[in-house]
């Protein structure tokens, strides 16, 4: 196996990619040697230290093959350190990459960019949606590496029942309008350090609360949204990420809440009444060792699994991001 391939002069690039079962269905940029070399410019010493064998193939990507996927995804030069950090994070055992790629659940590798790593990324309005090239291509590049090198091809080793739009790309940055220090500061990093956090996640679930004018009211709405009977988190457990819109965050901050007190409160209030769970699912939960706490189910193993960040623009919306359950939110410092 060689690291370069010759594309026949008469081949149509997109057809050639399709014929090999590569790509995610969207057009890609051909990873010519010049483009890959440009993507590799400026990497620090030890940039390859986080590269590890990727399941299910067991192959370990090289810097050049990662850069080739970054080019295909449309990344701009300079993004590679952030992509490598995200790849390192999903490769940690706690993330459970094999399980998250092969599962029937629709989870995707979500990437949250924090601190000084946010340069050029977007954490403002429409941060989960289109409009910013770095946001759009970071998650796509990560998914392409997992597809191409890891071998998690849809329909064969990616066994997702329905998949989700997040499998194309799912990356965003923390807001610079947060009233609190960033998420990594609650995970052992200095505030402002360049950090990416990954989680095998469902797409964001909107939390609309235009009526509440207090932090208590907003948290009541969020708790109600998180108490969903069909979430993996109910019985597989694992992390959640609550992404507060800046207006909700400002109201909570004004009323004395912070991320730690928010998650403690949600742990107590995001409960699923037993009668809302079908008898068959209750039996399934027992097989997983999960029983109700009194007359309601909890949504994970404890408040430490309820992570809080701020992102978005103007408006009274926040987002709850449930996870695969058999995963962890993993944060890694970007090597510069």
């Amino acid at each position, binding site marked *: *196996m060689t690291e*370069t*391939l010759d594309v026949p002069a008469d081949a149509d690039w997109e057809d050639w990619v399709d014929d090999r079962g590569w790509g995610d269905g969207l057009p890609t940029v051909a990873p010519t040697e010049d483009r890959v070399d440009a993507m590799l410019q400026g990497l620090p010493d030890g940039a390859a230290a986080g590269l590890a064998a990727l399941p299910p193939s067991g192959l370990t990507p090289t810097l050049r*093959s990662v*850069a*080739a996927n970054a080019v295909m995804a449309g990344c701009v030069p300079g993004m590679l350190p952030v992509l490598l950090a995200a790849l390192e994070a999903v490769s940690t055992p706690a993330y459970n990459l094999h*399980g998250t790629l092969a599962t029937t659940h629709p989870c995707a590798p979500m990437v949250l960019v924090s601190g000084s790593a946010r340069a050029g990324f977007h954490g403002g309005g429409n941060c989960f949606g289109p409009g910013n090239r770095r946001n759009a291509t970071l998650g796509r590049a990560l998914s392409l590496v997992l597809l191409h090198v890891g071998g998690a091809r849809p329909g064969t080793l990616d066994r997702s029942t329905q998949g989700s739009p997040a499998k194309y790309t799912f990356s965003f940055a923390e807001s610079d309008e947060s009233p609190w220090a960033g998420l990594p500061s609650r995970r052992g990093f200095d505030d402002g350090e360049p950090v990416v956090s990954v989680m095998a996640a469902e797409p964001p679930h909107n939390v609309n609360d235009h009526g509440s004018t207090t932090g208590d009211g907003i948290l009541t709405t969020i708790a109600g949204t998180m108490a969903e009977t069909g979430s993996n988190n109910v019985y597989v457990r694992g992390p959640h990420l609550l992404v507060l819109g800046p207006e909700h965050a400002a109201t909570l901050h004004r009323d004395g809440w912070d991320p730690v007190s928010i998650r403690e409160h949600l742990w107590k209030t995001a409960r699923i009444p037993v009668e809302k769970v079908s008898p068959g699912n209750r039996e399934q939960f027992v097989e997983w060792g999960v029983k109700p706490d009194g007359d309601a189910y909890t949504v994970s193993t404890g408040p430490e699994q309820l992570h809080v960040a701020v992102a978005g623009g103007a408006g009274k919306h926040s987002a709850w991001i449930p996870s695969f359950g058999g995963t962890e939110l993993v944060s890694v410092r970007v090597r510069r």
Partner: protein
Amino acid sequence: MRIVDPTYGLAPADQESAAVTATPTDDLCGLSNSKPGATVLLETVGRRLFDDHGLGPMSVASKPSAAAGATPELLDHLAAQYRLAVVAIGD
């Protein structure tokens, strides 16, 4: 046009396990993905293999959980212990 292969990766240096070289002593095992449907599949297939082909009875092993892959240690153990494995990925 020459491109860098986006599927390129380095294979593990040693994919063979010493455990695989041992001589299996039992006929048949089932490996479940730890979901309820897999258990039904394995019970049914195991019964048919026993009734129709005299294989078994089938011993059934499971992954640590439905959310995690089988460990190399479990796969090596099954490869060393059994001549034939039936893998069920029922949901």
